[in-house]
């Protein structure tokens, strides 16, 4: 027995291990799955380009072919467990690709249609006296900036102070209730926030009121919970040692919060506030019922109707009037400006959190 292990040449078992079955048995050949994927993709492309089918059935057919072939092949060679694993891998990856489709389609559509009206006039004119072509979004851009700015002015202090209360002071039932209801507030439908602001201002100014500030109040209802949540998360990240070091030097609690805790968390808070602004700047429904629409410049949020980009885009689309084509172009143009603003805000938020993140050494 010992001689047979020291002289491997004489032992046939080692060359054909496991009783004559090679180690790679029971597996698909290397690269079989990616190969099949490429093959079905090519087949789908051929159907699309040569046979002239529509692209969607081609893609679906190619995906289905890949799934069926790989599953049956794997089931025959590797057994049902591995086959199910491959099936799930294909489905999960397919689901991700499927989710990318609307995103790509939305971005492509908005950019291609919005570029029709991306000229200087579009950004410098309002809609006063415009019936056909021409006209612009100057008043709507200013309205969006003013209303969103006011909303930020209301919600950032309230949101940050609430977060400070929750992290630094809050104990007991009140803090629990605030945390819970802030979460619940995140889910208030935007139209309900709009109705709330409308109802509030009706009580003060009488029925039919339309004001920029009412829109700002409505947006604040949507924005405050986001600000609270993100600020709270950031304040919790500030190490307790920093606070204790400050207390040890005899610094009062409020100065500790203002001079030590807040500066440490500032980058994260700025990111959160930027994302919150990005969330509300594209809101339409609450502004539709509170701020309304006007053709001319109105930059006074306490006096009468104010146009915002999203409401402008909506009305240009749903009530185009006689020169529908020009109106649709303006609607898409405004949509493109809006999406650019939102994307830029998101980008800024990422950059802030990257650049000013606390250095960990």
């Amino acid at each position: 027995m010992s001689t047979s292990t020291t002289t491997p040449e004489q032992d046939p078992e080692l060359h054909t291990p496991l009783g004559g079955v090679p180690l790679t048995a029971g597996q698909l050949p290397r690269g079989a799955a990616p190969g099949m994927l490429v093959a079905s993709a090519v087949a789908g492309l051929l159907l699309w380009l040569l046979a002239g089918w529509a692209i969607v059935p081609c893609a679906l057919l190619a995906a289905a072919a890949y799934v069926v072939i790989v599953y049956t092949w794997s089931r025959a060679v590797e057994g049902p467990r591995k086959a199910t694993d491959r099936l799930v891998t294909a489905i999960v990856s397919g689901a991700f690709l499927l989710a990318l489709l609307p995103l790509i389609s939305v971005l492509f559509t908005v950019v291609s249609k919005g570029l029709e009206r991306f000229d200087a006039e579009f950004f410098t004119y309002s809609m006063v006296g415009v019936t056909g072509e021409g006209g612009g979004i100057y008043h709507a851009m200013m309205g969006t900036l003013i209303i969103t700015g006011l909303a930020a002015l209301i919600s950032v202090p309230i949101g940050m102070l609430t977060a400070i209360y929750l992290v630094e002071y809050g104990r007991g039932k009140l803090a629990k209730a605030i945390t819970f209801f802030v979460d619940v507030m995140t889910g208030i439908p935007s139209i309900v926030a709009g109705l709330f602001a409308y109802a509030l201002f009706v009580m003060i100014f009488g029925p039919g009121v339309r004001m920029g500030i009412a829109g700002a109040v409505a947006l604040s209802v949507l924005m405050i919970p986001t600000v609270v949540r993100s600020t709270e998360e950031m304040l919790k990240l500030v190490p307790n040692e920093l606070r204790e070091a400050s207390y040890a030097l005899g610094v009062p609690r409020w100065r500790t919060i203002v001079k030590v805790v807040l500066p440490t968390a500032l980058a994260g808070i700025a990111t959160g506030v930027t994302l919150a602004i990005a969330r509300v700047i594209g809101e339409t429904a609450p502004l539709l019922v509170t701020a309304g629409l006007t053709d001319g410049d109105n930059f006074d949020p306490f006096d009468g109707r104010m146009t915002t980009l999203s409401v402008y885009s909506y009305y240009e689309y749903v009530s185009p009037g006689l020169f529908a084509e020009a109106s649709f172009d303006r609607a898409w143009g405004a949509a493109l400006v809006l999406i650019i603003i939102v994307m830029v805000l998101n980008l800024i938020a990422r950059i802030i959190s990257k650049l000013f993140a606390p250095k960990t050494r």
Partner: protein
Amino acid sequence: MASTTEAPPRKDRAPQRPGDRIFAGISTGSGVLILLALAGVAVFLVTEAWPSLTAPAEDIPGGEGLALYIWPLLFGTLISAVLALVIAVPLAVAIALFITHYAPRSIAKALGYVIDLLAAVPSIIFGLWGINVLAPVTVDPTTWLSEHLGWIPFFAGPASSTGRTMLVAIIVLAVMVLPIITAVVREAFTQTPKLHEEAALAIGSTRWEMIRMAALPFARSSIIGASMLGLGRALGETMAVAMVLSASGGVSFNLISSENPPTIAANIALQFPESSGIAINTLIASGLVLFAITLVVNMIARAVINRRKDFSGAN
């Protein structure tokens, strides 16, 4: 026991400086303000809705009373939101799995951002997209569905020629709630204890079996909570539905015809600018119903998610 010398009172606490008191007061105040605002939403809505609750039935738009005015709206709201979830939840779980367990580690984070971008697109743009791109695409398939699967109530037809159907509204809603659900579920999957996963792999599981045994049970309550969160969002979504849906019908399960029940939120957005008097009060009453439903849904969602947070090993 009379003391002979006046001992100075012992200081148990640090001195309360005025600055401290003011600052604590302000921050507590803003917390209370938020609670008041939420209560205010309910109070103001009830006050403004009140005239329509007490008005005679024939004054309500439609002339049949408040309940019959709101019922089709409520039905449309529920059916669109629930069916949107039926599409979105499995997709969201699959996407979250892809990002956390399947995608290469180096690009997983970037893929997460891409899905988050979907959440950043304003709803008005989804409305424009739905009506211009998605609706025309669905015309041919829905015609086929109504011809061949017409015996299913959902596809009874006749298929709409514009594509502005409940089906398109449902798909748009599904796309809009997808990133919200994905974000919560993804968070839960990343918190799955590594040891559980490695143990599952060590006993010879395939990746799917590992996910089924370790990741999915761990994330189950998160998936439920996230679905409720998505439901709340889908119930309240306004502009996309208002633009996409051609709302002219009553209660109907037919998803592909041109006569659909409107949703509460979309109906408000469509009717509000041209309404006055009792019609406004009626719309606010329907908004109150929507507020109550979303409040309940969101409270359940948060309760489910928070319960899990207490037991997870992550904190």
